């Protein structure tokens, strides 16, 4: 995947501004872009959410199916996250099998939900070893303007909170649908905060042009208690230990702010 080429003058400008603690769009180094969030946007899905982070736009739909559990965890439901970098979202996305970027995105979102134990998977077991519910989280990138990870993670969390499962009872091993719905058991709220390193400085929520200038990227996901539950470094550069520890502290605070927006009430 080749990214669109960004003119050199602008590359320099971005880097210089960052070293003076400023950004091209006027934000401070640790400011997020404007966040807009809507839930229940796709009626056919059991849960859905649309997140706009600046011009980055992500839609997440949740589908729930009945299936078999994994052999090593027979009493737990199954979580599956997939990400689609739709070709309409950016000239750099090509149709076809998922690229390594799409796979990485899905796996980082997955790791946050899984490791924070956001969904109580035990409650999704119908019959141990035989029948469980499978939660499919499908991340759809609609417009790419940078920081897909944070936008996708927030959209996924909002969609999971929005998800309603049909009521059911088990009769002779068969699932019978009963009237009414119950919410998906979501008990933790992981929030991913992504940093870009430019000119040896850290900024949060990089937009596309900043991503093209950055040396490296670091995503830190924290749960509602402030624990770190997932990490991912990306890009061809590096971080010092000091930068990593500094990022972790910022991530915890930023996540608290964002969590309030995503988990209302």
């Amino acid at each position, binding site marked *: 995947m080749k990214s669109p080429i960004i003119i050199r003058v602008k590359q320099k400008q971005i880097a210089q501004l960052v070293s003076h603690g400023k950004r091209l769009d006027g934000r401070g180094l640790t400011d997020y872009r404007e966040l807009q969030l809507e839930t229940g946007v796709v009626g056919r899905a059991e849960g859905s959410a649309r997140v706009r982070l600046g011009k980055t736009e992500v839609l997440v739909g949740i589908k729930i199916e009945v299936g078999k559990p994994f052999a090593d965890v027979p009493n737990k439901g199954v979580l599956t996250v997939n990400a689609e970098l739709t070709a309409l979202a950016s000239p750099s996305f090509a149709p076809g099998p998922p690229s*390594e970027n799409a796979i990485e995105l899905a796996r980082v979102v997955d790791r946050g939900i899984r*490791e924070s134990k956001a969904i109580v998977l035990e409650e999704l077991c119908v019959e141990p070893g035989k029948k469980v519910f499978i939660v499919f989280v499908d991340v759809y990138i609609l417009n790419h303007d940078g920081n897909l990870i944070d936008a996708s993670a927030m959209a996924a969390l909002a969609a999971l909170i929005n998800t309603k499962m049909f009521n059911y009872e088990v009769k002779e091993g068969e699932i019978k649908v009963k009237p009414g719905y119950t919410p998906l058991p979501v008990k933790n709220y992981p929030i991913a905060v992504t940093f870009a390193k430019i000119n040896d400085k850290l900024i949060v929520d990089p937009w596309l042009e900043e991503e093209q200038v950055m040396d490296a990227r670091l995503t830190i996901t924290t749960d509602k208690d402030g624990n770190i*539950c997932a*990490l991912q*470094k*990306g890009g*061809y550069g590096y971080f*010092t230990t000091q930068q990593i520890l500094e990022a*972790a502290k910022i991530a915890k605070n930023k996540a608290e702010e964002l969590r309030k927006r995503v988990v209302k009430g």
Partner: protein
Amino acid sequence: MPKKKTKKLIDKNGVRIDGRELNKLRPIKLEVGILDNADGSAYIEQGKNKILVGVYGPKEVHPKHLAISDRALLRCRYHMAPFSVQERKSPAPSRRERELSKVIKEALQPAIFVKYYPRTSIELFIEVLQADGGTRCASLTAASLALADAGIPMRDLVAACAAGKVEGHLALDLNDTEDKEGEADLPVAWIPTLNAVTLLQMDGKVTLEEFEQLVNMAIEGCKQIYPLQKEALKAKYIAVKEEVKE
């Protein structure tokens, strides 16, 4: 969350199931230049991990449109043999393998002078023959040796090591059981001359304080692995030199 545990992984004296103390690495064996056809190669055993790495290049890029005009294209394929794990793994690359291929590549590139050979590709093939936890780090440790063996100019070697949390204890270089049953695993790759962390991942749950300790612990592990890497590289040529002296 209740977890099935047949036995404790760490006893009251802080000794682990394989007899190690919390801050100890597993035994590591490194060999360089063991494949005939590859331009560079290395082999690592770390605990029960057995991993082979081969490097080809720099060479012409195929397909041609992937060539980059101002630097070499580093490509990496991390792959697990079907027989490397308890239950046969499908030989088709999984999403996990593709993600690891990407982060390993990104961890190595800062150490390579890719600008020296524009329009070429450097291809790195990692085959995990037997897996026992911490394969991405062991692969990285061996991969930087294979790159050096291929004569690819590097600013330094990359050493990699994980640290994790097992039954409330922070421990170095988790084995498979500790990784699966433990609370967290944090792999790190490190370039000594830059004091740079080039790979950092984690899954699990740790506090901010534990996180800081884990990062430092993993880097301490890398510091122990780095001299072993240098020794392994030199060993290949010292053998030649000794022969001549006689």
